[in-house]
């Protein structure tokens, strides 16, 4: 099953199971959404639960917040994570803080589904990886699945969660294939997944970088370097224990992130490991991340701006002392 079909399966099953769940977004009805995730849902559930919105991100994200407070379970689709910036007050000042500021009485059980990342020559306002913005804000959960199975299991969990969840898909993942369990499938938020076991170095990634990391691990295996690839799957809450356990086993940590290097989640993972498992480290932590740049339009420039498989391979080699230079 494709990633986008897995997302659709989660939406379909949750809408069928719970009449409070509804979808809201631009062109998600008859058009089925830009990435065809919601295709067919309007036929099954009607225009009252698969609602096409005007281009009014702040308005309909805020509407989702209010509907959630008043007892519904909205799944709001934002075409690009870049467009979610239009609704920052609604996300950060309203949704994220409501539960806390109401003394714990109110809840905002809403999901904001959106997608980010490079790969389609969409330039600076349609290709960003902005997870660090939401990761930074207390009161939000942040989920970034890499595989079709995780997409289904995590979206189901996100819809059932009582907190606002920022669910960031990747534009290069929608057409990827994978095994997906039939029927109800829930992956609890906050559990990383070891996508490949290894003993020499821990390679932490999320979203599309997991696929690149797995390819890098394969190349490195041929060189005799055993890489353990940990897919965080959810950035908030983060499964810190799984990272620490792996680092204690391997003694080395590389973090691969598509987002710009400055102030990214990779930096935080590095800091957490340095604080809590410094004694286990046998080499400096390496962050393989995007350059601190606006994403360029030209395909070659775009590819150069974010880590590719070779960059991850180089980063891991540096961590194990095989070469002297890595992407910085």
């Amino acid at each position: 099953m494709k990633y986008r079909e897995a997302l659709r399966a989660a939406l379909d099953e949750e809408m069928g199971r719970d009449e409070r769940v509804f979808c809201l977004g631009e062109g998600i009805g008859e058009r089925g959404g830009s990435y065809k995730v919601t295709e067919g849902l309007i036929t099954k559930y009607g225009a009252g639960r698969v609602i096409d919105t005007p281009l009014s991100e702040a308005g309909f994200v805020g509407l989702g917040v209010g509907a959630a407070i008043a007892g519904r379970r909205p799944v709001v689709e934002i075409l690009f994570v870049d467009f979610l910036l239009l609704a920052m007050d609604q996300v950060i000042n309203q949704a994220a803080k409501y539960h806390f500021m109401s003394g714990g009485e109110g809840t905002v059980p809403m999901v904001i589904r959106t997608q980010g990342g490079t790969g389609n020559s969409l330039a600076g306002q349609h290709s960003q990886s902005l997870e660090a913005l939401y990761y930074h804000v207390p009161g939000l959960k942040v989920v970034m699945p890499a595989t079709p199975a995780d997409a289904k299991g995590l979206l189901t969990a996100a819809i059932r969660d009582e907190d606002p969840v920022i669910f960031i898909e990747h534009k290069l993942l929608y057409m990827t294939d994978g095994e997906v369990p039939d029927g109800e499938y829930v992956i609890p938020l906050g559990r990383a997944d070891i996508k490949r076991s290894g003993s020499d170095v821990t390679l932490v990634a999320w979203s599309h970088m997991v696929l690149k990391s797995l390819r890098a691990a394969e190349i490195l295996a041929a060189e005799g370097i055993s890489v353990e690839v940990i897919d965080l799957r959810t950035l908030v809450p983060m499964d810190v224990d799984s990272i620490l356990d792996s680092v204690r086993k391997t003694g080395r940590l590389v973090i691969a992130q598509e987002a710009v290097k400055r102030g990214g989640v990779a930096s935080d993972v590095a800091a957490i490991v340095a604080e809590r498992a410094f004694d286990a480290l046998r080499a400096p932590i390496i962050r393989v991340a995007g350059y601190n740049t606006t994403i360029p339009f030209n395909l070659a420039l775009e590819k150069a701006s974010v880590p590719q498989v070779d960059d991850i391979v180089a980063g891991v080699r540096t961590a194990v002392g095989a070469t002297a230079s890595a992407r910085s």
Partner: protein
Amino acid sequence: MTVTDALGLLAMYETAATIRRFEQRAIEQYRLGNIRGYLHPYLGEEAIAVGAIAALEPDDYIVSTHRGHGHAIAKGHDPRRMMAELFGKEDGYCRGRGGSMHVASRSIRNLGANGIVGGGLAIAAGAGMAIKQRGGTEVVVAFCSDGSTANGIWHEAMNLSAIWDLPVIFVLENNQYAVSTPIRDSARVDRLSDRAAAYGMPGVTVDGNDAVVVLEAMTEPLRKARAGEGPSLIECMTFRHGGHHVNDPGLYLPQDELRRWKERDPLIVLRARLTEAGVRDAAIAAVDERVEQVMDEAVDVANASPNPSVEAFLAEVSSQ
């Protein structure tokens, strides 16, 4: 709906007097150092919350603003727990975690005050969507200010409510100043209610210092909202009796204009209506006395309530 007979009027007067004295006592407590942070008094605007909410049923929702104590009290919040929240105490509505600008309650159906001007308007539309999806007949009253009409979210919330026929009534409290900026410098229209036409909804401008006028202005918007015929805008003209917040002397407010508005103080207007309806001064005095007693209790409760436990707070947040 509350009828405007003597009893109904007296109930509205009691709510207005409660708001008035709550704000005055809160300012006193602020000066004593018992309340910290921002405090935005509703003094002078009481008639709007009183009139608009008197028209509602208990299961109707409101969305409030940073100047929200009046909305909360009119909707049924207990002034004792309100004062405790202003003090930042454990018995406050937000357990000391929200303060003056964030009072909310699920059971009272107050979706919340808001520290961001206009921040609650799309939330109001969302509650309207929830009602529509449930097939309910409740409404949402979205209190907002003249200042909020300069913000995009005001327009987006109006438009979304209109296109989906959501049961939302936008009650615009036009006190004519956004902090210190007069509305005439912020808008090219003489009446902000004219903007309702841009969203295909009815809009009216009424005297916001007369609770009975506000109450009556709610009649048709309520009928429409409950019948699934969509939102309305009611602009209520009023004037702050002081600065933007407790530490703002409001020297930019033209003194002659302020004096004129104070002559039409919402409580003076309501008292005149009571007298006209044959209510004796003694009955009004009895209400004033009861209000004062509640205010004494509110201050006592707020003083006596414990501070939230720092240990409990740290235990909550350290696991996140």
